[in-house]
């Protein structure tokens, strides 16, 4: 342990006599991979947990329903929800509603992407762009999109424009800021080297900054697509004659909780499908990024 120090390197420093030994504590036991921070788990465990994650809510639902503690009027049985879903599918209204909703998402969120990606590129690339748009967007994104609904109705009426413009407002600012962040991750040294290889400013933008940040931009789009799905239903709750949100409002009037459940499940499936499609695109585009 403590060796005798023959020559003190800092003579004025107080010695170490009288230091108590550091407290000891037991070594932590080795835990299962499931409880170890950042440990990899087996394929089987992954699959089991994933199945559980989807099955558990259903199991709880069935249990609560079977126990009969909640009246069927409020909590429909899985069977009646399935029936309601099949019935809506047969009558075709499910598909017209789904299509109406998908159209609004594509239009409203599509418009937001078309505006926000170039804007984010400008903000992430040019300090002047950040200085010009940054402050306004940081304020605007804190204004709740739903607070714009009355204004949108006054300006555009209760037709389609106010619906997809709500989606637009709800997603455009976040997508701009997240795009700008992705663009800012291009290493400065990579840009510098590109200039020494003879690239012009436009070529640096097109051939270096855009391809480098594309996977990050698609990540941003994926996150904000979920927000678009949230707000399309909000938009349809106000005034619509078709769409999944509208279907929920109608079902509420007649206390058809089974229909509401069915529509919610459809929204979930549609949202996940959207998400998976963007993720597949992202993985294709960003194969190089591990």
């Amino acid at each position, binding site marked *: 342990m403590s060796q005798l120090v023959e020559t003190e390197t800092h003579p004025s420093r107080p010695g170490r006599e009288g230091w108590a030994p550091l407290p000891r504590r037991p070594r932590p036991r080795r835990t299962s991979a499931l409880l170890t921070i950042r440990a990899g788990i087996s394929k089987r465990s992954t699959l089991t947990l994933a199945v559980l994650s989807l099955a558990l809510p259903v199991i709880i639902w069935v249990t609560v329903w079977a126990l009969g503690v909640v009246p069927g009027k409020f909590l429909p049985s899985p069977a009646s929800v399935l029936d309601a879903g099949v019935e809506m599918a047969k009558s075709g209204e499910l598909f017209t509603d789904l299509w109406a909703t998908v159209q609004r998402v594509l239009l409203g969120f599509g418009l937001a992407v078309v505006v926000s990606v170039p804007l984010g590129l400008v903000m992430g690339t040019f300090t002047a762009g950040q200085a010009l748009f940054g402050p306004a967007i940081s304020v605007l994104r804190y204004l709740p999109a739903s607070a714009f609904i009355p204004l949108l109705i006054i300006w555009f009426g209760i037709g389609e424009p106010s619906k997809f413009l709500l989606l637009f407002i709800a997603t455009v600012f976040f997508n701009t800021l997240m795009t700008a962040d992705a663009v800012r991750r291009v290493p400065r*040294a*990579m840009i*510098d080297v590109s*200039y*020494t*290889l*003879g690239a012009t400013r436009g070529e640096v933008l097109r051939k270096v900054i855009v*391809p480098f940040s594309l996977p990050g931009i698609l990540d941003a789009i994926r996150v904000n697509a979920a927000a678009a799905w949230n707000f399309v239903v909000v938009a349809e709750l106000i005034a619509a004659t078709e769409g999944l949100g509208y279907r929920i409002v109608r079902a509420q009037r007649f206390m058809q909780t089974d229909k509401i459940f069915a529509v919610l499940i459809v929204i979930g499936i549609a949202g996940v499908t959207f998400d998976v499609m963007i993720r597949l695109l992202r993985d294709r585009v960003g194969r*190089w*990024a591990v």
Partner: protein
Amino acid sequence: MGGMTPLAGTLDMRGVSKDFQERGRKVRALEGVDLRVEPGEFVCVVGASGSGKSTLLAMVAGLRTPTEGTITLDGAPVDGPGPDRGLVPQAGTLYPWRSVERNVAFGLELLKVDAAERARRVDWYLAETGLSDLRTALPRQLSGGQQQRVAIARALVCEPEVLLLDEPFGALDVQTKEDMQVLIRQVWRDTGKTVLMVTHDVEEAVFLGTRVVVLACDPGRVAADLTVNLPRDRDLSVKRTPRFLGMRAHLEDLVRAQHQAHNARVTAGDR
């Protein structure tokens, strides 16, 4: 061959100074640097951290502008980055979405060189840097040394007059570093390029350079400029010869003195 004119690649720095703003205060990073690099020379600039050696290289590359003084390449003033001065930084500048060969081809694509000619030239430099078998690999699949080979080939394919190396092997392990030193010597001999290299590794500088320039700190300026008296053709065994060791010791003393003076000033709060 290759359109090389005999006197191309003369780099001339005259009275080059550089100031930075640091917390609202003006800090002089370099002071009156005079340095002339003749065609075909391999000049290594060594100095402790804070000597402004990387700043000097960035100014030669045209990525920064001197506060005072001029830099010329073959008589023409340097006023921005360009493919006549190829740059190889320390790490992390390969285009990760491009394969090895497409990384190397980048500069030729910008010049709109046709595909056949491009392939021919890329092939030559891939072979020169020992990358022929890795042409379709992505940067993330490569080791650090292989990545630097790509960066070197990518700069060379544009046929620069001068190759600028900014601590290119600083992030590599010792064995890989020696491989790369042998490689860069071979490339220098095969292409006849003028090379200006910045490094903090004195041994590397003596092994590679025909000349070694020592920069002083606070502000950076030329403290010594020595010709390396070793055969033009060297292999790793030269590192054990008395002449090499003597030169290395002499330069290490110079750099250490600068480093200690710098530390003393920092401790005294003179910055």
